[in-house]
């Protein structure tokens, strides 16, 4: 009789462990999806800010047409790819980042522009949006790491194998230009 109780007890404990681990995995996976959505929110914010920036800068920088056009083109390209494949999208976003930093570097040479309140506010918003994009990527990668650890480490890997959890992908920097920090000269 005692043996039955012991075995029953062990089964109950295993069941509780299984449920708790499964719930933990679900929580982490949802956190990962949420983190991915956050990146989207910040990227969209950037699309919305850019036309404003171009308008403000246009009046002051008469001879920088190519730089301005490069930004507009990059932005439109990135926006058009926004529902597509992650790899292409990542590359387009990276190019937009480079175009933007080139524009901001150019703007450093125009003291009138730098004194304009509108421009300063926009610059702050853009810098902050770039930071937020990096931080949401960072948070996404951290969440992917946590989920993958749980999926691959013992003993939760047993539960993950039984219930079929897939590993999370890391958001990697694919565009070579994005990896290099833009060289900015302050004269």
């Amino acid at each position: 009789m005692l043996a039955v109780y012991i075995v029953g007890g062990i089964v109950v404990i295993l069941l509780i462990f299984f449920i708790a681990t499964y719930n933990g995995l679900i929580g982490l996976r949802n956190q990962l999806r949420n983190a991915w959505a956050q990146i989207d929110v910040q990227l969209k914010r950037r699309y919305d800010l850019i036309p404003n920036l171009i308008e403000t800068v246009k009046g002051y920088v008469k001879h920088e047409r190519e730089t301005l056009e490069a930004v507009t083109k990059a932005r439109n390209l990135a926006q058009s790819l926004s529902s597509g494949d992650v790899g292409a999208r990542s590359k387009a976003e990276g190019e937009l980042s480079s175009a933007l930093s080139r524009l901001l570097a150019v703007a450093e040479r125009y003291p009138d522009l730098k004194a304009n309140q509108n421009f300063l506010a926009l610059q702050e918003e853009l810098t902050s949006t770039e930071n937020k994009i990096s931080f949401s990527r960072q948070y996404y990668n951290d969440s992917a790491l946590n989920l993958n650890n749980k999926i691959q480490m013992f003993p939760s890997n047993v539960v993950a194998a039984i219930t079929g959890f897939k590993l999370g992908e890391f958001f990697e920097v694919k565009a070579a230009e994005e990896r290099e920090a833009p060289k900015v000269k302050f004269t």
Partner: protein
Amino acid sequence: MLLLLGYFLGLYFLGSAIGGLVIALLVWGIMSLVAYFQGDSLLLAVSRARKIGRDDNPRLYNIVEEMKIASGLEKMPDIYIIDDPALNAFATGRDPNKASVAVTSGLLAKLNRDELQGVIGHEMAHVKNRDVLLMAMCAVMLGTIVILAWYATRVLFFSGMSGGRRSSRSDGGGGGQVIILAVGIVLIILAPILAQIIYFTISRKREYLADASSALYTRYPEGLASALEKIAASPVQLKSANQATAPMYTVNPFRQQGRAASNLTSTHPPIQERIRILRAMSGVSLADYDRAYREARGVKAGITPASALALDKMSGAAALRAPSPEAETAEESPQKVERARETSDMMWRLSNYRTVNCSCGTKLRVSPEFRGTSVQCPHCGRTLSVKV
């Protein structure tokens, strides 16, 4: 500690241990409820803080929002500014979804973006790690113990004077009574002291954890280190802090008043040590912070709770990042600095000074008359050997 005190007091005074426990828990419960529901608004009203929205101070709002994303909080905390030239900040909020962060106007004026972000990261870490709730509960625990001990002392005093008529109702005869009394007295004296020590130790530990979390969120520990340096150098005292609210601030608001910064009754660890640990980090994970902590103090025991270390497997996976452009443009133009450096380097060499390079980036100049074999880096605290 609380339960122990309650048990013995109840046993002695009421002839019933359970009664004592119930009363102890009741007092604790009432105080907890009050602290839980009233905590935030009380704290903010006391410090004369005003709430700001996104448009009132976009820079601060953006910095807080960036840290919210990096730390994974669900909702943006309320942001307040305290009109005070002193440099400090604090966070309150019993729940990560209902938190508030407050910053002094002095801090906003003096720090650059990276430093401000480091400080805000530290505060948000307090919110995320539920330190506010933890410290409030510890404070309540401490308060209850003190109240019970005080009450017990008074009753003991009075019943002692009137000749101990309680001996008849006891449950073990005279001998048992005396032992319980003795233990009770020891507890009455010791419990408040021990509880206080425990409270302050917990507070200091959570401060280290918040520093480590801030480095992890920002990926840039130098920001917080540099901010702490500026705060430490500032002589202005924060007007509206008192002993009860001290643990919530980034830096001990009472450090100017001669309180020894590292003794058992301090709520914050000494600033210089915090700066040294942050600068000595080689990566950004909690494990890296733990390693830097152990090196800096020369102790074997780390500071990070084992549960946090178990969750954190990012040692080496997360890299430090470069300072943000705002920090760089704020410096003098690079050529001027370079020329000044070259000139002073030449002067050092002419006077036969030796150069010792520290791995934190500092170059130490050692006088030719120095005969020792090792020096300590003033920035990060590492001991470096000097060639004779």
